[in-house]
């Protein structure tokens, strides 16, 4: 019985123990249907809205960006291109910061099936870096 109680206590305690880390650099958007990408300095978590990206259908990205050493970081630009064909999207996304520290990137449309490379320009202080992630659409 004691063992069972200890297990229950551990299960309920685990999320609470994890909370401070999430608050510092919330990467929860990357879980399940999202992605987490990182470089030596930055971490970025994002998920699409709607969850399933369809060819030719507008979608948004909801994302967090942060640095590994807890400096404030911001999202500067988002682009996407098909590297094989060297063409971009026909649409220019806009970035809006929300009060919870997340960004919402609106106006993305992948108009062809195949490999799309998403690029994120992020900045902390004077330093800017580009992180990228491939999405293959079928």
């Amino acid at each position: 019985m004691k063992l069972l109680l200890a297990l229950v206590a551990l299960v309920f305690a685990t999320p609470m123990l994890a909370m401070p880390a999430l608050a510092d650099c919330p990467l929860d958007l990357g879980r399940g249907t999202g992605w987490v990408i990182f470089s030596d300095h930055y971490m970025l978590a994002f998920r699409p809205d709607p969850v399933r990206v369809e060819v030719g259908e507008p979608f948004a990205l909801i994302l967090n960006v942060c640095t590994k050493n807890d400096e404030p970081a911001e999202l500067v630009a988002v682009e996407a291109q098909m590297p094989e064909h060297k063409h971009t999207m026909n649409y220019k996304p806009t970035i809006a910061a929300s009060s919870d520290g997340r960004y919402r990137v609106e106006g993305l449309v992948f108009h062809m099936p195949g490999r799309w490379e998403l690029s994120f320009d992020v900045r902390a202080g004077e330093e800017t870096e580009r992180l990228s992630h491939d999405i293959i659409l079928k």
Partner: protein
Amino acid sequence: MIRRLLAWVLAVAATAGAGVSAQPLAQPLAQPLLDWTEEEVTLIARHGPWPLPPVRDPSNRVSASPAAVRLGEHLFYDTRLSGTGQTSCATCHRPDRNWSDGLARAQGTVELDRRTPSLWNVGYGPWFGWDGAGDSLWAQSIRPILDPREMGAGTGRVAALLREDATLACGYEKAFGDRPGRDDERLLVDAAKALAAFQATLVTPRTPFDVFRDALVNGDRVAAARYPLAAQRGLRLFVGAASCNACHFGPRFTNGEFGDVGIPFFVRPGEVDSGRLGGLARLAGSPFNLLGSHSDDTTGEAGRRTRHVQRLHSNFGEFRVPGLRQTARGGPYMHNGSLASLDDVVRHYSEVSPDRLHSDGVPLVRPLGLSAEEQGDLVAFLRSLDAEVPPRPPVPPLCP
């Protein structure tokens, strides 16, 4: 007990095994079915199911309203919507010609530079017209009514017609809930919204391809094998080596966007048709675009593409990717009607000059170098996207 259990397990296993292997033997295939890979089946599945759910346009408050569809159908055939009183929407978008006119170039008060596009499945598109200058079907419906080269009716003429013709005024009240008011521009837009509601009902029927696609997805090899072998080979090219599905994607066989496919853009010596580039300029300058006050969408969702679309140098000479359903019954082809038959279209893609097309990367349009048999297979596949259309019932009376 254990023996009995073992016997039961063996019996079940044997039955299941027999079920799987016996099916092909019991029903031999009528003709060979290509050995479709899982990847190919996934790609083919994306071209269905068909039909799609009916169109609901949030920017048009009477979208899918039966009363608006009826008013729109009456207006579609009404020659009083033109300056001369002799031209209606149906003059060029003829129901007996697949909602086009069979001409290489549209004929308004003058000959135009582009072909009359078919209206089949038009309600599902995000962009309208060959250059996408319209971002809604109702905005696109206004353009030919006002264009002096096409119907050339003024805003006041349309508004007066709705106000003064008792039957149309009655139809308007049924569709919009009020008698026609004094605001001419609003009445023009409402007439266009009724026209759009009607046009959005023009949906092509299911085709032999749809039967094949569903059978393939459901693993019904017997039904799938009824699809002609030449069409199967053409489909394999379409989603494979020829990569036609890069642009002709989805259930309508179009991604709804624009491309330069190597058709000359000179309309006459010294004059070019800039295609999408000019269309985007007209879209931005239109008081009827989805960012304007005439949209009925209060969420901002309908204007998402219009808000974010960008003008690119590469838009020059691009034209809207047409859907391919029912296309073999139409023709001529391409935005300027320069190719007479489907065979010509396939030959164009087989022999297109790479010098004409500019691409830094792997070109999306390139000379495919198809054999005569392969060209025939592609045409056979394209023809399988057609079906007989049941005769249209007479236009119902607007107000009995």
